[in-house]
């Protein structure tokens, strides 16, 4: 393989999901060879995560309706690989004045950039329930990864809980793969979904898929309960069942595994370390790096694409990746197809309206914090309970970084990527403050843990 020319180093993409891959493709089509960094073994990102090389399941089996899109994204990456500087298994752990710090095979290196597209994607948004630290409890995404990547299920009788479109999708994928889906417990009420219908009709095919999964589950005898408050995951040494509340009724169900999440949260640490400006997004109920309609962040030369800057899903990620690349090219003097750029912006706006509909259909359970018992472990790494956080608030603290300093919530291995959302909710509830005013956990390097004895270039 010939090394790409030197100028290639000045344009870097972080994240080889749909957004990053489409961005790389677009840059290359204009003659710019980017460096594409991704911490995972094989590109594809979260939604189109690829199985290990020797696994031979069909795309149809793995990605269902999305098989065509998955194959297209993968094929694109395969074609690009020899033309760009693609570096899988490369974690970006820090950013500092026009340089990214990477870790690959235990070796630290630096990647300078002039222009950067941040396409770091998302992970599950977790709202803990009592018992969530038992073996056998997974996030929805993790359950899906187990299936997509390794071809294994997390249990034999699995309960899916939480809310969001992924809830039904993953339950469906498990049932199709032959696992017993004991129940789907959706926190959002049916009425919300009816209310959301007008907005959802804007993307009929996506809506149709959602309805299909749902209908399929019902047709195959999978109990689907709505308006559910998951009360507890039970078990001694591992999961043995769940109990939940629906209206006035308390119900129990035996199972050996639980997958749960309430939609997704953006991976924003890199944008934070880069100095990007953040703003509160009521839709995502999160502080997010701001981007203009064309994908520019507040930092010159830094562009944001995909779910890393706000959850919009896989199709939007592809669109946003291409758009950010076009914007970048235009900004540095390349001739670009302006009409295409406008068309992509229009597509994103349409998906955004649909996304608003989804938020209506699967509303955030605003009463979660009030219902969380004091004994609930919020931060697994540092073993901080809801009660500990409430005590810290009672001591007069309300700013999330300050609460972290006082009671250690978010200080552990995950750096708040798991528990940050829940901790912020509890602080807002306990202090009576508006969720936005509680602030956001400041990003601190390393984005993921870094080993001692690491070797370094230079």
């Amino acid at each position: 393989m010939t090394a790409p020319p030197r100028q290639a180093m000045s344009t870097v993409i972080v994240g080889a999901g749909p957004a990053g891959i489409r961005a790389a493709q677009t840059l290359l089509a204009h003659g710019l060879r980017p460096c594409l960094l991704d911490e995972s073994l094989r590109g594809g990102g979260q939604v189109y995560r690829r199985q290990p090389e020797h696994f031979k399941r069909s795309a149809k089996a793995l990605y269902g309706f999305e098989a065509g899109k998955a194959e297209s994204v993968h094929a694109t990456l395969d074609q690009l690989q020899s033309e760009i500087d693609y570096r899988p298994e490369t974690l970006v752990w820090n950013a500092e004045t026009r340089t990214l710090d990477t870790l690959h095979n235990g070796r630290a290196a630096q990647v300078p950039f002039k222009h950067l597209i941040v396409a770091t994607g998302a992970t599950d948004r977790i709202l803990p329930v009592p018992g969530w630290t038992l073996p056998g409890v997974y996030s929805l995404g993790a359950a899906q990864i187990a299936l997509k990547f390794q071809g294994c299920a997390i249990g034999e009788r699995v309960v899916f809980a939480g809310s969001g479109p992924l809830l039904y999708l993953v339950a469906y994928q498990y049932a199709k793969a032959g696992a017993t889906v004991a129940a789907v417990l959706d926190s959002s009420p049916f009425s919300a979904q009816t209310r959301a219908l007008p907005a959802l009709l804007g993307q009929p095919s996506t809506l149709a898929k959602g309805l299909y999964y749902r209908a399929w589950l019902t047709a195959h005898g999978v109990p689907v309960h709505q308006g559910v408050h998951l009360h507890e995951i039970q078990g001694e040494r591992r999961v043995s069942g769940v109990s939940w509340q629906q209206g006035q009724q308390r119900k129990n169900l035996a199972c050996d595994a639980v997958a749960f999440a309430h939609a997704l949260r953006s991976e924003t640490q890199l944008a934070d370390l880069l100095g990007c400006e953040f703003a509160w997004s009521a839709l995502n109920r999160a502080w997010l790096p701001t981007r203009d309609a064309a994908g520019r962040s507040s930092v010159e030369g830094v562009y944001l694409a995909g779910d890393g800057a706000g959850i919009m899903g896989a199709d939007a990620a592809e669109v946003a990746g291409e758009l950010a690349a076009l914007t970048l090219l235009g900004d540095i003097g390349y001739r670009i197809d302006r009409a295409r750029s406008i068309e992509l912006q229009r597509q994103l706006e349409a998906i955004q309206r649909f996304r608003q509909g989804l938020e209506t259909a699967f509303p955030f359970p605003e009463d979660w914090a009030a219902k969380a018992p004091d004994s609930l472990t919020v931060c697994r790494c540092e073993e901080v309970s809801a009660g500990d956080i409430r005590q810290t608030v009672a001591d007069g603290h309300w700013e999330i970084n300050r609460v972290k300093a006082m009671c250690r919530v978010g200080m552990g291995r995950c750096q708040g990527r798991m528990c940050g959302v829940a901790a912020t909710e509890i602080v807002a509830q306990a202090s009576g403050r508006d969720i936005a005013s509680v602030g956001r956990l400041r990003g601190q390097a390393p984005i993921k843990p870094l080993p001692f004895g690491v070797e370094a270039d230079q």
Partner: protein
Amino acid sequence: MSQPVEVDAVVIGGGIVGASAALFLALSGKRVALLERDFFGSHSSGVNYGGVRRQGRPLSQLPLSRRAHEIWGDLRAFIGTDGEYMRSGHLKLARSDKDMAALVAYEEASRGFGMELQLLDHARLRARFPWAGDVAVGASLCADDGHANPRLVSPAFAVAARRAGAQTFEQAHVSEVSHDGQTFLVRTASGLSFRAPWLLNCAGAWAAQLAQQFGEPVPMRAGHPAMLVTEPLPMFMDVSTGVEGGGIYARQVARGNCVLGGGQGFALDPATARPGQAAILEILRNAVELYPPLAGAQAIRTWSGTEGYLPDREPVLGASSTQPGLLHGFGFAGSGFQIGPAAGEALAQRVCVGASNIDLTPFSITRFQTHLQSQPHTSSPAIVVPSGTDNVIPLFRGRSNP
């Protein structure tokens, strides 16, 4: 605007120095207002390494440090919490015979200050601290030094001051100070105002601006020690450690996490700093030879802070030479956590009884007057902006398109 609140003393800066000054003033029955721009103990005082050590300090600081040691010994009585303070011992490692000779010389010179340093040759070091890396040829142990959790200790000083009767304010950025010949008038950006005969400048790395306003410029620079913490590890080290000649320092907390420091970070803006890639990698590469049990451990978080340094690395502590009623306490050069409470107490004594028990001459602000031309004293109001740092490296924050 409402009438200024009348107090005996206003303290600017709610770090450990200002908060303990406020505490001791309140304990002496003075009416005191403690004004903090951000949150109490959220800057150097709350983000430091947590070393509570006397060993290794210049002899000039040992009287204050000895007094501070007494306060730390009684911490719970003063602030209502032990803040994870442990008298674990402080072990200073030597990597060469020359460094060991320096430890020997320090032990001799510092006798009489009650530290009771124990010199350990290679064999005794190995026997007592088997985890120590082979690069260490010997060490000096101060058995009564220790470490504490700065995030808990420093804010607790402000809480204790409040309990003792001080008026304490967070999010209260002092934006304007003037003196009318009788008293100071102090205003905050949040709309508070105070009148007081005494003003204590405990604004940490940002204190130079006020000194300058009163005709006492000081050549203070901001520094940003780089810090890092590991995931919890099996306990292997029960002392806080450092290395003669500088370099890496490390301690292990009760949960098992190791906190390490070494090298310098950089400023993001006048009030925030990051450790920087070079410093982080240096620590990760070099710590293992000193602390072999760290091999393969994972660092989970890094941080830094903003600390004031004067060229001689001694603080400015004591009365202004130009403005009666003004006291300074800043510039602790990366080691003010341990002596902070004694520094605050000394300032309080100056207010209450006219002089501190401990001689503060070595820390007088006048030591810079020969180096720098003093500006004429003006009592007109000036804006105190938090930009007293002169080595701020800005991060790019521009916007390509509005």
